[in-house]
Structure formats: C-alpha cells, structure tokens
C-alpha cells in the first residue's frame, strides 16, 4: 500500500464519517458546518483523482457557495423562530435496510464497472484527439463549450429558472436588513479592500486561463459570487425592491450569448451551436461568468436586485 492510497483511505473515511453526521445529526447548524467540510474533503478527493477542474469547482461551488446558501437559509429560518435541534424520532423501520442495500448495490455495480475494459473510441478519447481542432487547450472546457455546448447552454437555463423560481416565491422583500457584520470594523474594511479585488483577479485569471488550463466560466463565476457574497454580508450592497434593466441583462447574459451565437450559426448555414471561433468561447464564457455571479449573489441575498449602500 502506497502513501497515496493511505491518503485516499483517510479522505474516504472522512467522507463517510462526515456524511453520516450530516445526515443523522439533530443540530442543524452544526451539520451544515459539517456539510461544508464534506465539500472540502470532496475537493481534496478531486485533487487526488487528478481532476483539478473539479477541485476548483467544488471548492468554490460545492463547499463555498452551497454552504453559504445553507447558512443563510438557516439564519432566515432561525430568525423566524424555527427550532434548530430536532426531537429524536424513531426512524422508519425500513430506512436502515433500504440504505444499506442501496449502498451495497451501488458499491457492487461501481466495482464491477471499474473492471470494464475501456472502449477504444470512447467520447473522452476522441475529445483528446480532436482537441487541436477546437482551438482550446483544456479538454474539459472544450467539451463544455465546443463539443457539448448544448448541455452548457441548457444548464445556464437551469440557473436562470432557479432564479426565476426563487423570485416567484420571494414574497415581500424587506430592503436593507441583511448583514450583521459592520463594514466599518477596521479588519473587515481591510478585508473588503484586499479580498474583493483579489477575488476579481482570480476570477479573471480562471476565466482566461480556463481555455488552456484548469478553470473556466463556472469556477470564475463562483469565485466572483464569493465577492458578491462578501459585499452582501458586509452590507456594502443592499436589496432593492425591483430588478432594473441592468440586473436583468446581467442575469440573462450567459444564456443570451449562448443562444445568440448558437442560433446565428443556423442563419449562417452551419450546424446549430457551432462557434465561429475562439473569440466566441471567450465571449460566452465572460457572459456566463457574469450571469453566474449575479444570479448566485441574488439567490444568496434573496433579492430581486442589489444596490450600493449609501453611507
């Protein structure tokens, strides 16, 4: 057994232990914290499995964003008087056998699948062969934007629908009251002036490098969301009653860019979703990054729009 496998075993142990606590615990706040750590360990696992693109996405989205969203929702429930600690209840009789059986079944097929010999012309292999033609150096980005762009376009639609759905059930918005961390606290102010620009830099770096190295619009968008969340939490921006045109345009930008380029290809006599060049990849990715960041920040703030807080 090599040290590598030892590391894998430890991560695996942490995954199983954490998931058990997250799922069976009875103090919600603690278990959300554990869930964030679960995401962190998953990110480490991606690193071990040789998938840095996924590690980046998991760090930013899986652990960071989902965790922050959960904490925020928790805060709203508790502010409304919800109980944190659940009473102990007898679990349904079949729950344990069903869970154990499902797990065992999945393990069985997963292990069996490991033994399957790889097809020589698997899609992933062809991607690597055709990578040169796509003009990109990062195979994952090439799949997402060039080879299977339709999936990514529809995924942007999913994100948009999530926001529209959240808006539909928003109810009354109370402008203002969101943050509890005062941005005039000296350290927080310093944080804002350093971390916010650094997040911006990292986002741009991930976006630009993402065509050839790990990274891309999703990771960049998630990092940028981190910046947005920071602004919301420190009260630098506050919710507004209605979304203006700028907000709406930012929210739809990613999908709109994809749709326009994908559909205009048809008008030019090419197959739908063909991209006219590498510049289109950058254009779409930039639009996607902005849309992801704005959408997720709005979902986090539970707002239709945000505006700078006037001091």
């Amino acid at each position, binding site marked *: 057994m090599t040290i590598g496998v030892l590391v894998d075993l430890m991560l695996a142990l942490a995954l199983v232990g954490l998931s058990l606590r997250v799922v069976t615990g009875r103090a919600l706040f603690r278990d959300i*914290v554990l869930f964030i750590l679960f995401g962190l360990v998953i*990110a480490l696992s991606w690193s071990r499995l040789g998938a840095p693109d996924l*590690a980046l996405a998991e*760090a930013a989205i899986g652990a*960071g964003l989902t965790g922050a969203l959960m904490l925020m929702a928790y805060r709203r429930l508790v502010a409304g008087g919800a109980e944190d600690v659940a009473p102990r209840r007898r679990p349904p009789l079949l729950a344990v056998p069903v869970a154990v059986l499902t797990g065992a079944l999945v393990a069985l097929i997963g292990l069996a699948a490991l033994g399957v010999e790889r097809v020589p012309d698997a899609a992933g292999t062809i991607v690597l062969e055709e990578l040169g033609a796509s003009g990109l150096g990062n195979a994952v980005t090439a799949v997402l934007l060039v080879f299977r762009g339709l999936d990514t376009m529809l995924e942007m639609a999913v994100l948009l629908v999530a926001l529209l759905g959240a808006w539909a059930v928003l109810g009354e918005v109370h402008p203002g009251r969101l943050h*509890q961390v005062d941005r005039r606290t000296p350290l927080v102010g310093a944080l804002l002036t350093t*971390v916010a620009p650094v997040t911006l830099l*990292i986002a741009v770096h991930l976006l630009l490098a993402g065509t050839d190295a790990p990274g891309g619009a999703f*990771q960049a968008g998630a990092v940028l969301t*981190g910046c947005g969340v920071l602004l919301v939490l420190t009260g630098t921006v506050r919710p507004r009653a209605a979304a203006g045109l700028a907000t709406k345009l930012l929210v739809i930008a990613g999908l709109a860019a994809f749709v326009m380029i994908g559909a205009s290809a048809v008008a030019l006599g090419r197959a739908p979703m063909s991209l006219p060049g590498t510049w289109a990849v950058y254009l779409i990715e930039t639009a996607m990054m902005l849309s992801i960041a704005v959408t997720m920040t709005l979902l986090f703030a539970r707002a239709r729009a945000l505006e700078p807080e006037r001091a």
Partner: protein
Amino acid sequence: MTAIALGLAVVFLLLNLLAGLWRIGQGPTAADRMLAVLLFGSTTVAVLLIMAQWLGDEALRTVALLFVVLATIVTLAFVGTTRDGERP
C-alpha cells in the same frame, strides 16, 4: 525521498483534520465549531499546496489560492448567521 516526505506530510495534516472533526462534534459553542472550520481551511490549503508538489499538478495551487480567498466568506456568513440562533 522527497515524494515520501511530501506524502507523509499530507497524511499528517489529514490526521489533523480528523482531529478537528472531534472539536466540531464536541463544541461546546458555535464559535468552537467555527474554529474547527478555520483549522480545516488552513490545513486544506497546506494539503493542497503539498499535493501540488507531490503530484506535480500546478493547478492545485490555484485551488489553494481559491480556498484562502473563500475561507473568510464562510466565516463571515457564520458570524452573520448565529447571533440569535445557536444556543451556547
């Protein structure tokens, strides 16, 4: 030798993480749990940096950078979250 040292360092830091889990389970206050998250954050950064060297994967340094930047945000979300929520 270098590879072994790097691997052992990762194993040692992961053991630290597992120990931190105990503090989260134990509490007793929300702040204690958040402290453990802090431990997780800083240790993960170190693990990622060492793994970048160990596995020869440049991109993991970017992941580490991302962690450093985003770690504070979770703390901020936490501080805003628990004032009247978490019982001590």
